[in-house]
C-alpha cells in the first residue's frame, strides 16, 4: 500500500477488504445488512435450498415497507401476494433470529428511515440492502449501496459481497442555498447536469460548503438520489453534525464504545491532495427550486424555466419525444401553472420530520386545493409521532390534509396508493419513470416545498411566492 493521500471512500473500502481476488472483485465485509419483504423471500429460499445458515443475524435488520398499506394497518393486509411476502419476512426473521419490525411495530417504517433514526447506521460502515436507495446511509460517511436478491443471499450466508472497487467522483457545491431551496433541489440540479447515467461506474463523494451546512436529513435526501445519477453510491464525510445526530440513539455506541468509535470517525475524511477519477464543481447561486418534466430523474429543470428543445438535451430525439408525449408536455412549455391532480409527500427521499416541517410551513393558514388528492406518508412511526408532538398534524388537519401511516407507498405503488393513468402528480419521491407510480401515471419530482405549494394552489407553483 502506498503513502498517497486517501479519499474517505478509500479509507472505508480498504478497511473492509477480507480478500482481494486476483484480477477479480474484492471480497468486502458488510457491517450492516438491512432486509425487507420484497427482495428477501427468494434469498431465504436459496439459503434453505443450499442448506446454509445466516452467518451473523445480529448484523441483520428487517423491516416491512414496500408492500404495506398506508391506512388501516391494524387490519389484515388485503392483497394476498403482499400478505404472503410480509409473512415470509416475519417467519424467516424469527427462524434465523433476525430483528424484525413488522407492520404495527412502533419502530416500523421505511428501511432507509429507520436505520439512521435508531442509530443502526454509523460512520465508516459498509451497509447493503436489496434496494437501490440504500445509498441514503452514505450521508453518515458509510459505504452503502443497493444489491440484488442473489447478493442478499450472499450476504446472509457469508456477511460478504464481491465487488470490484468503483472509480471515485467528487461533486462539490459551494456557496449558500437561497430561501426556499432545499437539499432535494440540490440533488435534482446535479442530476440534471450530469444526466441519469453520468456517474455510472463511480462512487460519489459530495463535498463543499453546501453539504457542510446541511442537516443530516438533508444529506440523506442527497445521498438517497446518488443512484439516480447512475452512481454506485454516494457519501458525505462525518462531522460534528453527524456525531450530534447519532449521540444517544438507541443502537448507537455508548460510554467507552462511543469514545472509541468517535476517535475513529474523526479520521474519516478525504486527505488533502487525494485523487479522484472525476470531479465537478457547482455553485449554490445557480440552483432554484427544481421540478422534473420527463421520465427519468435527469429530466429536471429550474421551476421558472421552459422545457428544453430536443436538440438542447444531447440525447436521442426519438426517446425525448416519447418521454414528453407520455407526460403530455411539449418543448418550450413553462412548468409553472401546469395542473396538478395528486401530491405525494413521503418516501425514503423526503419522508423525515424536516420534510414535514417544510410542508407545514407552506400549508399553514392555507387550504388544500379542491382538485388535489394529497397523500401525506411519514417515513416511520417515530416520524409520525414527531409530526403529532410538534403540532404539525394540527396544521395539516386544519388545512384539509390527512396523515397516513408509514411505508414506501406511492413512490413505487406496490400497494394501493397508485396514481391513476393520465393524472399528474407532484411527488417528493425519487423516480419519475413511465408507470412508476401507477400505469400511465405522470410524475413530477420535486421538494416538499414545491409539493406543498402545488397542494394548496392546485398547479405547479414556485414555493418562494408562498414563503
Amino acid at each position, binding site marked *: 500500500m502506498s503513502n498517497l493521500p486517501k479519499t474517505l471512500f478509500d479509507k472505508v473500502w480498504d478497511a473492509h477488504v*477480507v*480478500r482481494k*481476488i486476483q*484480477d*477479480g*472483485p474484492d*471480497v468486502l*465485509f458488510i*457491517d450492516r445488512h438491512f432486509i425487507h419483504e*420484497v*427482495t428477501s*423471500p*427468494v434469498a431465504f*429460499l*436459496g439459503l434453505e435450498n*443450499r442448506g446454509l445458515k445466516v*452467518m451473523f443475524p445480529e448484523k441483520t435488520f428487517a423491516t416491512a415497507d414496500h*408492500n404495506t398499506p398506508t391506512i388501516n394497518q391494524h387490519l389484515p393486509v388485503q*392483497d394476498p*401476494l*403482499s400478505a404472503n*411476502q410480509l409473512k*415470509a419476512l416475519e417467519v424467516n426473521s424469527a427462524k434465523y433470529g433476525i430483528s424484525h419490525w413488522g407492520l404495527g411495530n412502533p419502530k416500523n417504517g421505511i428501511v432507509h428511515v429507520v436505520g439512521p433514526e435508531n442509530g443502526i447506521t454509523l460512520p465508516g460502515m459498509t451497509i447493503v440492502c*436489496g*434496494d*437501490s436507495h440504500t445509498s441514503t446511509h452514505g450521508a453518515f460517511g458509510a459505504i452503502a449501496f*443497493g*444489491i*440484488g*436478491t*442473489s*447478493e442478499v*443471499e*450472499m450476504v446472509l*450466508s*457469508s*456477511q*460478504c459481497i*464481491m465487488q*470490484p472497487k468503483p472509480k471515485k467522483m467528487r461533486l462539490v457545491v459551494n456557496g449558500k442555498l437561497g430561501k426556499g431551496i432545499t437539499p432535494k433541489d440540490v440533488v435534482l440540479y446535479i442530476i440534471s447536469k450530469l444526466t*441519469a*447515467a453520468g456517474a*455510472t461506474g463511480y462512487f460519489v463523494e459530495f463535498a463543499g460548503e453546501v453539504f457542510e451546512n446541511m442537516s443530516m436529513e438533508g444529506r440523506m435526501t442527497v445521498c438517497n438520489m446518488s*443512484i439516480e445519477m447512475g452512481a*454506485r453510491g454516494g457519501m458525505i464525510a462525518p462531522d460534528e453534525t453527524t456525531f450530534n445526530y447519532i449521540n444517544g440513539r438507541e443502537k448507537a*455506541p455508548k460510554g467507552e464504545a462511543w469514545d*472509541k*468509535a468517535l476517535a*475513529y470517525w474523526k479520521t474519516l475524511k478525504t486527505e488533502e491532495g487525494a485523487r479522484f477519477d472525476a470531479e465537478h464543481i457547482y455553485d449554490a447561486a445557480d440552483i432554484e427550486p427544481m421540478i422534473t418534466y420527463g421520465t*427519468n430523474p435527469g429530466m429536471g429543470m429550474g421551476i421558472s424555466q421552459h422545457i428544453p428543445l430536443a436538440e438542447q438535451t444531447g440525447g*436521442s430525439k426519438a*426517446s425525448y419525444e416519447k418521454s414528453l408525449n407520455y407526460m403530455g408536455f411539449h418543448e418550450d412549455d413553462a412548468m409553472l401553472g401546469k395542473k396538478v391532480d395528486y401530491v405525494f409527500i413521503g418516501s425514503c427521499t423526503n419522508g423525515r420530520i424536516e420534510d414535514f416541517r417544510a410542508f407545514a410551513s407552506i400549508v399553514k393558514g392555507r387550504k388544500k386545493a379542491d382538485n388535489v388528492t394529497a397523500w401525506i406518508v411519514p417515513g416511520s412511526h417515530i416520524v409520525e409521532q414527531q409530526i403529532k408532538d410538534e403540532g404539525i398534524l394540527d396544521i395539516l388537519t386544519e388545512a384539509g390534509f390527512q396523515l397516513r401511516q408509514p411505508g414506501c407507498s406511492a413512490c*413505487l*405503488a*406496490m400497494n394501493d396508493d397508485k396514481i391513476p393513468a393520465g393524472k399528474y402528480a407532484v411527488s417528493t419521491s425519487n*423516480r419519475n419513470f*413511465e*408507470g*412508476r407510480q401507477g*400505469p400511465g401515471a405522470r410524475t413530477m419530482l420535486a421538494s416538499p416545498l414545491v409539493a406543498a405549494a402545488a397542494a394548496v394552489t392546485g398547479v405547479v407553483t414556485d414555493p418562494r411566492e408562498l414563503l
Partner: protein
Amino acid sequence: MAYDKFTVLKSSAVPMPIENVDTDQIIPARFLKATKREGFGDNLFRDWRYNADDTPKADFILNNPIYSGKILVGGKNFGSGSSREHAAWAIYDYGFRCVVSSFFADIFKNNSLNIGILPVTVSAGFLDKIFSAIEADPNTELEVNLPEQTITILATGEQESFEINSYKKHNLMNGYDDIDYLQAMKEDIKGFAEERIY
C-alpha cells in the same frame, strides 16, 4: 452448478433500439410480490407487451414473430433504475442468455452476471451495425464467444471484442456463483469479523 455454463452462443437476436430502458419497464413493481422465482418470463416488459386486457400489443417487438433468439440487443443505458434482480430473472426466464448494448447500468449488469446472463458492451458504432443487420435480415445470426471475448455478425464477419472481468468470466464458463466461492472462505470471514470495532 448455479445455472447452465456459457461458452459460445450462436443465435439470432431480438432488436430493441430504445435508450434508457429502465427496470420498471423490464419488470413492473407489481410483479415483485413473488416469493418464488416463477412466471417472470411471462411478465418480461409486461406493460409494453400487453394491453390492460392482456391482449398482446401488435407493435411491440417481442410480439413480432419474425424476431427470435437468445440474444437481446438494447439501446444505451440498458437496465437503469431500481436494483430489482427480478429484471435479470425475467430476461433469463424468457429465454435470453445474452444482452448487447453500448452501455449498461451497473446494478443490472451485476445482477445479470450473477445469474448467468452475459451483458456484452459494444461501441455505439458496432451497436448500430447490429441493428442495421437485423433490420435488413431478421434472421441475422450473432456469435458471442466468451472464451475469446468476441461478438461477430456471422453474415458479414464484422467483429468486436468486449470486456469482462476475468473472475466473472471464469464463473460464467463453469456455471459457478459467488456463494460457492464465499462458503469456501468462511473461517477467514469469521476471523475478520472479530477485528471489527462494531
